[in-house]
């Protein structure tokens, strides 16, 4: 018999098992790794090169001098990797639910919040591997933040990844079928990315449209981008940190509620899990 009372070591074993499985799946899906890298690199190499000529950037924190557009857009592309990774995790959870693999996770005797949190953290670890690979390539492209920035950005990557992953987790509980995932791409990922400070500073947005600026300012993804941007230069954007932490708590709480067997939509559905 396995230990029924679960000492602390058993929780660590369960987390390590979930993390190992996510890593193995990631390693087995090399196409996913390449796709996750190619997407931001296309933006960096092609889109940013074109925009450099037409978009002037004044000095805005955390930058202390004029920066090339490639430098400005890099934190946004880092957040983009994490956004897509969060959605990829969401997609895999919907797929697992359709195939039945999700059931084996949810019938584990560990609490459901712990299982979901473990899956979330494991997904973030995978996204951080992708981010550092991207940053290494960007370095070769002359996007060179301070060396210590690569270290100080790590907590921001963890928090932003957790927030975006929790959002994906919440979405996965609400999506009924895999086919509906295309809608998520159109109505969540693209609007979140474009209506944010990832590609343009918010003051630029205001010049164009106050309404658009306000939408961008209300977008949680903007704060994930800014948290990463400041952390990459050894600074903390406290507003961004507060918003990311708040959204993380909100999205994760909503996801746990939705996956609860006695509450949420999960309990009212037939044939799920």
């Amino acid at each position: 018999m396995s230990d029924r009372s679960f000492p602390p070591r058993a929780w660590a074993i369960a987390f390590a098992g979930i993390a190992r499985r996510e890593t193995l799946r990631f390693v087995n899906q090399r196409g996913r790794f390449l796709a996750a890298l190619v997407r931001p690199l296309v933006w960096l190499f092609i889109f940013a090169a074109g925009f450099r000529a037409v978009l002037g950037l004044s000095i805005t924190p955390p930058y202390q001098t004029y920066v090339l557009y490639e430098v400005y857009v890099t934190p946004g592309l880092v957040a983009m990797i994490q956004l897509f990774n969060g959605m990829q995790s969401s997609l895999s959870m919907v797929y697992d639910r359709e195939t039945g693999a999700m059931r084996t996770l949810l019938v584990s005797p560990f609490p459901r919040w712990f299982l979901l949190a473990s899956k979330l953290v494991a997904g973030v670890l995978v996204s951080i591997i992708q981010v550092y690979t991207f940053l290494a390539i960007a370095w070769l492209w002359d996007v060179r933040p301070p060396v210590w920035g690569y270290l100080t950005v790590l907590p921001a990557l963890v928090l932003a990844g957790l927030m975006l992953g929790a959002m994906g987790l919440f979405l996965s509980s609400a999506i009924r079928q895999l086919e509906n995932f295309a809608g998520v791409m159109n109505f969540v990922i693209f609007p979140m990315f474009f209506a944010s400070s990832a590609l343009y500073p918010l003051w630029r947005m205001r010049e164009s449209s106050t309404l658009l600026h306000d939408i961008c300012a209300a977008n949680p993804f903007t704060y994930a981008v800014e948290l990463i941007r400041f952390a990459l230069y050894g600074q903390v954007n406290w507003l961004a940190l507060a918003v990311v932490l708040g959204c993380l708590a909100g999205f994760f709480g909503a996801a746990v509620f939705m996956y609860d067997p006695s509450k949420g939509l999960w309990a009212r559905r037939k044939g799920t899990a």
Partner: protein
Amino acid sequence: MTAALEIDHVSHSFGRVTALDDVSLTVPRGGFTALLGVNGAGKTTLFSLITRLYDNSSGSIRVAGHDLRRQPRQALARLGVVFQSRAMDADLSVRQNLAYHASLHGIGRSNAAARIEAVLAQVGLAEKSGDRISALSGGQQRRAEIARALIHSPDILLLDEATVGLDVKSRAEVLALTRRLIADHGVSALWATHIMDEIQPDDDLVILHQGRVLRQGSAGQIAAGQGLTRAFLDLTGVAAA
């Protein structure tokens, strides 16, 4: 001695649709209990309640004496489940899948390695441990699913239409394996099916129809000399419909 599984006056609805209506049944320890019902009878919903994918809105479920709502950890730790659809990761090997499921029960690597050897030997897949799930035949995949369900040494196995989609030979193998596990290892089993041939006269039988238990008893007694198919059709009124 407490029963392996006790379901007492359980009901469940999806919105206005009643899926289970005042269901009560018992699975004795070390026995094979067949849960017979046509598609849509409520078998999968019942399994979802027993595995706590949903909470039951009324009644109680006890696994090896542990109330599922008040002691979910203890109850779930005693359950091994084989779902109707594939639940293992097709891209991972049998061993990797089993190690993952061992971790979901808090079993560490060294213990897990020993358990994996043991359960693979029990289901006759010892030589396939390094193969990917996608490389196994349908029957082998089901046996791997049973190995997964056994990894934490549960008291009771729940098998939801475990032979669906298998050819006759694989179906017979999976059924024989389950019966052997009961005989050799004292595991109890609740075997949901709609196939009469899988039930033997000595088996404990529960007939579920339109969310209600119509009969529980030995299959031989329920058949009452007229054959199980005839008895089932008479009880459910399916033939008349």
